[in-house]
């Protein structure tokens, strides 16, 4: 089972060992390919039973969710079982301010949604993070459900179970069209009749939303990296390792836990806002407790604390059920079995963070050295 992580770590090591220019070229190439996935429609990967662009949007959206939840669970070690609550608050903030009760533009709604979720994170976290252990899991579990019940019952504000429609879309640019590729076996052809307008946000084409979500994923990943590689990230890790010892080494653990919790909440709110503008219609049924479980599964499967791991897991767990749609309900059984197998054989997740090499400035280490260690440590 270690083959999985040594494979990914091998990629990581080889990548880090490259000269700077090669790294930049490779990273840009990879990013371009990822952006163009729905245009390229690669056979085997593309989903035939559902709109590939829409699936990719969900992959990126849940990757964003997983990055946010990874800060809470992976870095700070706080088991948050109500993450869907923040997602829902973000979505409904956009719905209420952008459609139901005001007509604010989306680009204003999104930051407001993030502030609202940040504040709800603080309000929920301040009393619960002072106590330890299971309380947080129980309280957040309740929180996720309470948010949904409020959405159902606060009819005048949220439209109750009818929900909110006509949620604003991002501003359009509409500069040019990009034709898709179609595949005949493994031969690609340009399909001029099927074009994606750059950038036209609407119900007919999910691809611009995918690009938007993907861009946010990259931005948040970058900020996440900066947070983790700093005093803040160390404080989170120390707190998760041993809270008493951390406190006695001068870490104000409560403050840092609250920071992680609230940051996670704000990213959850951002994801919710993105979901709302893509759907243009939301109702409380979109935010059931099952999603909280799915989000936690993404973080755990990916390897708590590894940002790339949780991104890959989120994309995988979103893509696979769509890819294997033809299996109908059997895919949920397979999904459950796969999770159980993972829990038994690889409880640390597919790609647990490999901390032993993290402190090293990878740039300063010679490639052969890394290789030797990469193999030895795998």
């Amino acid at each position: 089972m270690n083959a999985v992580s040594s494979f990914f770590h091998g990629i990581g090591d080889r990548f880090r060992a490259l000269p700077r220019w090669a790294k930049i070229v490779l990273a840009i190439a990879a990013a371009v390919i990822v952006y163009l996935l729905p245009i390229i429609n690669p056979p085997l990967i593309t989903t035939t039973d559902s709109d590939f662009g829409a699936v990719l949007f969900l992959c990126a959206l849940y990757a964003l969710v997983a990055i946010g939840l990874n800060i809470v669970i992976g870095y700070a070690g706080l088991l948050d079982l109500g993450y869907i609550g923040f997602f829902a608050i973000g979505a409904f903030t956009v719905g209420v301010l952008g459609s139901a009760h005001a007509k604010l533009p989306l680009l204003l709604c999104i930051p407001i949604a993030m502030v609202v979720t940040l504040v709800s994170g603080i309000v929920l976290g301040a009393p619960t993070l002072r106590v330890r252990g299971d309380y947080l899991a129980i309280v957040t579990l309740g929180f996720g459900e309470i948010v949904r019940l409020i959405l159902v019952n606060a009819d005048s504000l949220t439209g109750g179970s009818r929900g909110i429609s006509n949620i604003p879309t991002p501003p359009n640019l509409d500069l040019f069209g990009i034709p898709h590729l179609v595949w005949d076996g493994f031969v690609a052809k340009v399909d001029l009749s099927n074009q994606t307008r750059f950038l036209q946000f609407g119900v007919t084409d999910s691809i611009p939303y995918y690009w938007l979500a993907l861009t946010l994923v990259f931005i948040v990943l970058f900020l996440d990296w900066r947070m983790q590689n700093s005093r803040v990230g160390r404080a989170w890790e120390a707190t998760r390792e041993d809270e008493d010892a951390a406190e006695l080494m001068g870490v104000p653990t409560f403050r840092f836990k609250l920071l992680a919790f609230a940051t996670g909440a704000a990213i959850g709110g951002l994801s919710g806002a993105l979901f709302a503008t893509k759907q243009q219609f939301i109702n409380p049924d979109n935010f059931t407790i099952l999603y909280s479980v799915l989000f936690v599964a993404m973080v755990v499967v990916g390897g708590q604390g590894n940002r790339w791991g949780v991104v890959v897991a989120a994309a995988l767990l979103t893509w696979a059920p769509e890819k294997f749609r033809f299996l109908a309900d059997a895919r949920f059984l397979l999904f459950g079995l796969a999770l159980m197998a993972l829990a038994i054989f690889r409880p640390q997740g597919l790609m647990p963070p490999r901390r032993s090499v993290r402190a090293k400035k990878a740039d300063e280490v010679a490639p052969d050295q890394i290789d030797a260690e990469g193999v030895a440590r795998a």
Partner: protein
Amino acid sequence: MPDTTPGTTPGSTPDPEQHDTAKETRGTRVDDDTVLGPDTEATPDTSVDISVEEVADLPKGKMLEVEDVTLRFGGVTALDGVSFHINTGEILGLIGPNGAGKTTCFNVMTGVYQPTSGGVRFMGEPLGKRQKFQITKLGIARTFQNIRLFHNMTALENVLVGADAHHSTGMFSALLRLPKHHAEESEGMDRAYELLKFMGLDKRADELARNLPYGDQRRLEIARALATNPKLLCLDEPAAGFNPAEKARLMELIQSIRDQGYTVLLIEHDMKLVMGVTDRIVVLEFGKKIAEGLPAEIQDNPAVIAAYLGVDEDAS
């Protein structure tokens, strides 16, 4: 019984010192994804200058005063009217048989427990209800009787966490990579490497704490505590589990820490060892102070001898 543990926050683990077997085993487990280095005893380099301005020019006299501290756990009186003080620049030994209350005394001094009555003054100021991390920032750092490193962090990172005690980089400085972030990161790195070198751990800086040999883990705890720039360093049986040669070497190391300006409070079981390094000694037994004085005086004190031999004073 809701109020049997005075001063502890509800829900917190009652005593971080009590036998934490889970963590103990974790500390010695060898994980499959790390190579064990050669198990050689590292050599501390005591020529490294680890002094900091925090400990320079401290006023002579009493640095810390324990004033009539009593601490009861339900029916157990762990500390019973204990008073003593620590002078600036000295090594004070705190000794006593098992269960005498030495570790509990540490816990009171570092804010883990609030005393039932009495109090602790540091640099003339009462500690009051200060939180643990605030006390650390005031200048009291400690190690643990059961090693409590951050096991899944590297040795270097463990020390960096300690150094962060006197840093203030927050979310915004980190996100925007403000000059403060860079300044504190490089200060922390310098300090950490200096301390690792002093402790003889610099070659193992990038190894996970849990993969270090036992002795290195003990020394890493000291390095981590020193990184907080403490005025007072409290060591809870730092040589536990060492053989006599290792113990002697560690005692030399502790002396050279003192020589660089730090004040040290040392808990140690081994009477003979304590005699050699300490300036003064306080003896606890059953939560009471039974003696205090120069090592030579303690050695000849009948109450101490009785306590250590386990002889009931009334008998014989």
